[in-house]
């Protein structure tokens, strides 16, 4: 029988009924749901949804953190031939209105009161929304359950389904059996850097094909342990903790809460792990901070063996064999530094780790390779069901994203844009034929919008977004290449810098905004007995500006060493008074900087940078977590940084 997600789940339940499928930490204890328990739960939920009137082809919104019952709800919807639509749980209410209305969603299964409040707020704009089921009913005691949309608990739905199973069970089973691989399996809304989000339509066949291709590439088995901690609405998390979970039959673990991920990671010890660069960065920052607190011996060992590890990893990447001295040193390092470090990070059992989403800083990448974590890069997007390129275990590099996975064809257009053809391509954007026509060609290619090139070893290299790469105009570096992300990444590698935004396209020089990392700089300030009252105050300290300048100048030195990028050195910078935030629209939900929007919003600051001003007053509207708005005002100082002449190639 050709597989669909539900039939795969049933197969696992039949073959290995008592093997764990999902684990969740609740009230301090990891609780297991076996495949047979999962099957029973899914069947009850499906019967409940059928009873409520969910029909084949309809959409069901699923909104929440990674929770076993929310994953079961996705399977339940698919059991009836309906389509789950995972939505970002951290989106503000207004952002949920468009997907709910455009996908004509009648039912939503949500995690908690927070999501219920948001949906009730936008309910008037989504007249088709009929009912909500909430996984965790805490705080909802006083809410009215009748009305439109009706509000029920997920327990109610399970109970409803169980009581209706005798009548509706056969109907559910028939619908499950009737599902075909080419049916639509899920609808993912992309975070959308511009305009309304677009719904990406994927079939069972496309998602499963990619899930299996990725699994075969890394020889994944049913023994893998995965920690699901990123938003389930993001296709990456969905592939790792849903598509590949069902394809391979491994265990998906749901953390206790968003705050406990680091602790849960250590307790679970995943074997297959994914983290976007920013999380790897945050982990490294925490290691760096802790190392600064460590004793002199520990710090010396750390510095000595980290250098050793980096050299070892670099040599391995070049395919060189290590001598016996190096091997001995490496074994010693593993015993004294790498092993304990992996353990402290929760990476002791990691066999395959991936990072993607953004370019990763070479130093950051090298750090994890150096301590013996098999960190690799992959390339893909929502439209391609993630797996386009993957790096082989023995050929992981910081500057490429790997080789095409089985089934993928790549092509680079004359303009430098990367095109992809694979069985994992989306069907199209939901009810948006114009947008679909823009990215899907008639002969089956998908336009990625990325500027890429394929090197001699067959690895794909992504330079930047095709539209973001710019050139300087005028000044000493006239016509030089300006790759904003490259510059920003250089700055972001410093623990003190959380975010950076570089400007320079069409200008005579590069200037930048810098966001300090509150945790790291706060710690640094405390260590120096530098008092501060909060973020704004700390960011405005002259001592902090000096610290940032040091980072900028070191980045400039590295940029100057690369003839092609010497022009991207930062001439002037300022330290922003507020953290760039997705709630204010400055970052996407996946936390990429929206450079254009930031340039508009802070136009006064950009002008001041280029006008040579020494300080500039600014008032910024901010949106708090509860949806209220306020004003943050500050007089920002603007600093100059030393720029070096480009290093000329001797040859």
């Amino acid at each position: 029988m050709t597989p669909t997600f539900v039939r795969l789940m049933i197969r696992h339940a039949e073959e290995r009924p008592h093997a764990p499928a999902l684990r969740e930490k609740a009230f301090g204890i990891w609780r297991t749901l076996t495949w047979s328990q999962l099957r029973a739960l899914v069947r009850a939920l499906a019967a409940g949804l059928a009873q409520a009137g969910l029909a084949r082809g309809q959409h069901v919104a699923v909104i929440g953190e990674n929770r076993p019952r929310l994953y079961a709800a996705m399977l339940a919807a698919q059991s009836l031939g309906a389509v789950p639509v995972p939505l970002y749980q951290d989106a503000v209410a207004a952002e949920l209105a468009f997907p709910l209305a455009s996908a004509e969603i009648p039912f939503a299964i949500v995690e908690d009161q927070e999501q219920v409040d948001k949906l009730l707020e936008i309910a008037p704009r989504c007249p088709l929304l009929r009912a909500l089921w909430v996984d965790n009913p805490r705080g909802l005691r006083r809410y009215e359950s009748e009305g439109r949309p009706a509000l029920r608990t997920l327990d109610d739905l399970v109970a409803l389904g169980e009581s209706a199973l005798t009548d509706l069970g056969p109907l559910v089973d028939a619908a499950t059996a009737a599902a075909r691989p080419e049916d639509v399996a899920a609808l993912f809304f992309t975070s959308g850097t511009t305009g309304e989000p677009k719904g990406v339509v994927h079939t069972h066949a496309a998602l499963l094909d990619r899930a299996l291709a990725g699994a075969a590439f890394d020889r994944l088995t049913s023994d893998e342990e995965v920690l699901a901690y990123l938003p389930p609405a993001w296709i990456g998390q969905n592939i790792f903790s849903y598509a590949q979970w069902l394809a391979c039959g491994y265990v998906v673990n749901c953390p206790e809460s968003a705050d406990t991920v680091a602790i849960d990671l250590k307790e679970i010890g995943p074997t297959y792990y994914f983290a976007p660069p920013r999380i790897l960065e945050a982990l490294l920052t925490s290691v760096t901070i802790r190392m600064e607190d460590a004793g002199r011996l520990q710090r010396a060992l750390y510095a000595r063996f980290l250098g050793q590890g980096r050299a070892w990893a670099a040599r391995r990447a070049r395919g060189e064999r290590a001598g016996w001295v190096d091997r001995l040193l490496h074994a010693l390092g593993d015993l004294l530094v790498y092993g304990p470090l992996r353990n402290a990070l929760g990476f002791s059992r990691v066999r395959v780790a991936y990072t993607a989403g953004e370019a990763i800083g070479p130093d950051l990448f090298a750090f994890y390779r150096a301590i013996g974590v098999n960190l690799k890069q992959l390339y893909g997007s929502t439209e391609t069901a993630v797996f386009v390129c993957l790096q082989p275990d023995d050929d992981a590099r910081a500057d490429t994203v790997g080789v095409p996975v089985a089934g993928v064809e790549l092509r680079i257009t004359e303009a430098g844009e990367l095109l992809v053809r694979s069985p994992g391509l989306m069907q199209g954007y939901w009810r948006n034929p114009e947008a679909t026509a823009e990215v899907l060609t008639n002969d089956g290619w998908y336009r990625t919008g990325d500027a890429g090139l394929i090197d001699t070893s067959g690895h794909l290299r992504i330079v930047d977004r095709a539209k973001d790469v710019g050139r300087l105009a005028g000044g000493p570096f006239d016509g030089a290449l300006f790759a904003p992300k490259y510059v920003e990444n250089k700055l972001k590698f410093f623990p003190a810098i959380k975010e950076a935004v570089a400007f320079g396209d069409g200008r005579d020089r590069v200037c930048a905004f810098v966001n300090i990392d509150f945790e790291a700089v706060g710690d640094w300030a405390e260590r120096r007995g530098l008092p501060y009252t909060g973020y704004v105050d700390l960011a405005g300290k002259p001592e902090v500006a000096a610290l940032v300048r040091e980072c900028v100048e070191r980045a400039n030195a590295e940029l100057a060493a690369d003839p092609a990028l010497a022009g991207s050195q930062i001439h002037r910078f300022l330290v922003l008074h507020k953290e760039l935030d997705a709630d204010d629209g400055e970052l996407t939900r996946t936390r990429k900087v929206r450079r254009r929007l930031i340039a508009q919003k802070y136009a006064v600051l950009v002008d001041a940078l280029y006008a040579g001003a020494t300080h500039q007053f600014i008032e910024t509207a901010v949106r708090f977590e509860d949806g209220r708005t306020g004003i943050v005002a500050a007089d920002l100082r603007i600093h100059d940084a030393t720029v070096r002449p480009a290093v000329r190639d001797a040859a």
Partner: protein
Amino acid sequence: MTLVAATLRGAEQPAQASGTEASADAPRERFATPDGGARRLGDVVLAVEGVCLAFGGLKALEDIAFDVREHEVRAIIGPNGAGKSSLINCINGVYAPQHGTITLRGELLRRASPRHAAARGVARTFQNLALFQGMSVLDNVMAGRSLRMKSNLLQQAFRLGPALREEIAHREAVERIIDFLEIQAHRKTPVGRLPYGLQKRVDLARALAMEPTILLLDEPMAGMNVEEKQDMCRFILDVNDEFGTTIVLIEHDMGVVMDLSDRVVVLDHGRLIADGPPDAVRADPEVIRAYLGVGH
């Protein structure tokens, strides 16, 4: 996760919930309960009558009388030195008033001792934190259950059957509180290493671990930033709502008091100058003069 306590609470009050019908922008109507949102206030559980407390010549409390009803949030406000903490300390059994009576569920609190009060279901948090700084959050909250531990020292020392079973049961109760107050990430962290706002939350957790019928909160929001205050408001309301705990609250932040409490007692220089629902108290001329200042 932050919610606006004011919105939640405001919506629960009938006056606001049954107000404008067509405010489509806010989900407010949805919060109203079918019975119009009236809170389920019960009988008087705590009655303070004619309480006088003096330290030598200093009269801290003069002839104070008020009551607390089951399930309500009762605020005690007043300027510095008004006698708020002294009053809480009388209820809690730390001080013995020279005159007057304090009745808890119809039973006179005769012998003043905190242990006696605690055994009768009165728990409290402190204005200046009184946590075990070197112990983990978990151990601090577990300490709140010590009055409920039945096994003897020997059994506990050797983790014998009954003691082990008891500890597991208590740990379960504590885990529910940890989950409720969202401090899972800090279970094993020594309290002294936590920021102040979180320490306040641990203090509340420990008081809750007693499963009190009356919870005395002495300035639970003192020294907190806006976000921490909002979180704390939500937790207090949730405690009141989910567990039905009666809460007596001392607080300086007027906004918090007005949003949270059902009835307010106002003290000034040891005398009770007003008692009533927040809106009435706010409008009381004497309160405005004494507490909020003239020309407010």
